[in-house]
């Protein structure tokens, strides 16, 4: 189903949505793009992507799991009030929307984690087609179409007149149906709104199938991993920016009389990530870098039949030592 909306009618529509749900949109904070609460401001036209991925709206960087009070009597464990209420995220890119779905099986399964699936269930994703290839990105290589997405509830392509919407899910349909600001559109109009992506490469940088095919064999090659990780400084920036890195730590915070247990993002780049009192299986840097690449392109496909990378390019663009995952993957596929 396709619908379209005039340029001047879009913000009024989003304001209407805001009466039913909390609306998030790209906002600039301290000079960097992020997803923040939409306060009726104009929406960015040339928004590439946020610095931090929107995964933090689903897996918070610091999230209380439960609390406790310890008055004079016995200790009382208290649940934290769960985040609830419908939300809409506008402006999400095809890569990040895919990442949010990729993480789902980690948090569901035999021991469903109420937090992530709960956040997913209460969120409507309004995706927007890209017009420019982001620095460092390789979405094409990862099989992601930056101008289409089955992982959003509604996906928009911009036209000179306004926006054409592909309504993907029932939740998306409910948001536009019966709304006088929207008019019918067609698949032809949708197709013709596909635009050239500025800066797009003609030839892929690496072949994902070869990476998947060869990584198990190349995993034990110590010299390969030593070579590709040589300049890594273990800062962990790639893991915090990554939309599919989900590893976390659990820790306690206590003041007299009460406390809470939190989870917070953690990083496989740090030696402490796996350090035990007498033994650390990933003490050496190359093992930790191999773990990150292996987790995404080897273990995750084996365990969940999904590659845990969407080619958003944040890790490439923001690595302080220019360690380029694309070059590493090319090397693995060799």
């Amino acid at each position, binding site marked *: 189903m396709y619908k379209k909306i005039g340029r001047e009618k879009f913000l009024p529509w989003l304001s209407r949505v805001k009466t039913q749900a909390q609306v998030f949109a790209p906002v600039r904070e301290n000079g960097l793009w992020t997803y923040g609460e939409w306060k009726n401001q104009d929406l960015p036209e040339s928004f590439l992507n946020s610095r931090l991925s929107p995964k933090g709206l689903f897996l918070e960087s610091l999230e209380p*799991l*439960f609390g*406790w009070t*310890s008055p004079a009597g*016995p*200790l009382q*464990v208290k*649940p934290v009030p769960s985040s609830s209420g419908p939300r809409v995220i506008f402006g999400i890119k095809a890569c990040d929307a895919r990442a949010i779905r990729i993480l789902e099986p*980690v*948090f569901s*399964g*035999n*021991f*469903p*984690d*109420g937090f992530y699936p709960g956040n997913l269930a209460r969120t409507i994703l309004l995706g927007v087609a890209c017009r420019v290839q982001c620095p460092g990105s390789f979405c094409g290589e990862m099989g992601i179409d930056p101008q289409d997405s089955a992982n959003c509830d509604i996906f928009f392509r911009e036209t000179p007149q306004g926006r054409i919407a592909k309504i993907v899910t029932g939740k998306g349909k409910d948001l536009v149906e019966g709304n006088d600001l929207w008019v019918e559109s067609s698949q032809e109009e949708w197709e013709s709104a596909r635009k050239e992506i500025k800066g797009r490469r003609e030839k892929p940088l690496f072949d994902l199938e070869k990476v998947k095919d060869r990584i198990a064999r190349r*995993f*034990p090659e110590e010299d390969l991993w030593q070579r590709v990780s040589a300049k890594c400084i273990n800062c962990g920036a790639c893991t915090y920016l990554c939309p599919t890195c*989900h*590893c*976390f*730590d*659990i*820790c*306690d915070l*206590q003041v007299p009389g009460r*406390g809470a*247990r939190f*989870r917070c993002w*953690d990083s*496989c780049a740090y030696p402490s*990530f*796996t*350090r*035990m*009192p*007498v*033994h650390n*299986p*990933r003490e050496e840097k190359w*093992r930790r870098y191999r*773990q990150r690449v*292996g*987790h995404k392109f*080897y*273990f995750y496909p*084996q*365990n969940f039949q999904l590659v845990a990378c969407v080619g958003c390019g944040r890790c490439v663009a923001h690595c302080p030592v220019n360690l380029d995952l694309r070059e590493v993957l090319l090397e693995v596929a060799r």
Partner: protein
Amino acid sequence: MNQTCQCLPGTNIYQPHLMEIVKIIAETEDTKTFHLQFQDPVIKGAFSFLSGQFAEYSVFGEGEATFCISSSPTRMDHLEFSVKRVGRVTQALHHLNTGDAVGFRGPYGNHFPLDRLEGKNLVFIGGGIGLAPLRSLIQNVLDNRLDYGEIIILYGARSPQDLCFKYDLEAWNQNPTVKMITTVDAGDKAWKGKVGLVPIVLQEIAPSPTNAMAITCGPPIMIRYTLLALEKLGFTPSQIWTTLEMKMKCGVGKCGRCNIGPLYVCKDGPVFSFEEIRNFISDEF
């Protein structure tokens, strides 16, 4: 070996149950065994586990740590777990007294394959605090003694003072249906048992691989050499079982750190046959 979640749907999987410490045994200078009982009788009645499974134990305000359940599911009066004092949480646990509460969530992970051990001669090989998970299985097996063949238990520690579960070692030694061998790396004047590293003593006593299963747990270095010794004795990889320890936080396959290659110790293990892990064990454990 499917895991079962004993939490109710919709409940917070990270929120532990409260258990009361009913007894503390000082095993060695730095190791204690805690006996726990659920505060809530409903949970106590509904709780079950299998030998080899582990849990997350917590001291509120200090954090959580992972330990196996060292008692047997055939003895459900209380749960036992044993802790060597090595870090923040274990230090905090060592400071607790009977009557204090600890957080407990679990059981997690897979378990020893009792169905595949039945009718077999069993060789248990433990080192240090690594006896804890084996002890659960040994008690389980001894409580159903007729279902199994010969039982050999080889246990080693650094010194006589470092031997854990001395009361069990004594009882197994007295048990006419068990061949019990205790060894230490370095003895003292009073020591009457063997002296020597576990893998070396194992080769000396040379248990037959015929109709046998070997189950081992101990420090990584001991496990590695024990696997080699067992292979030399003719045990095939599918006849060797071990339980592995890795740093864990969630215990349920989400926090992302306890993997050895594509295998997650928390949900694919902690119990593995050597067959499953032989490609990874030398590399990342």
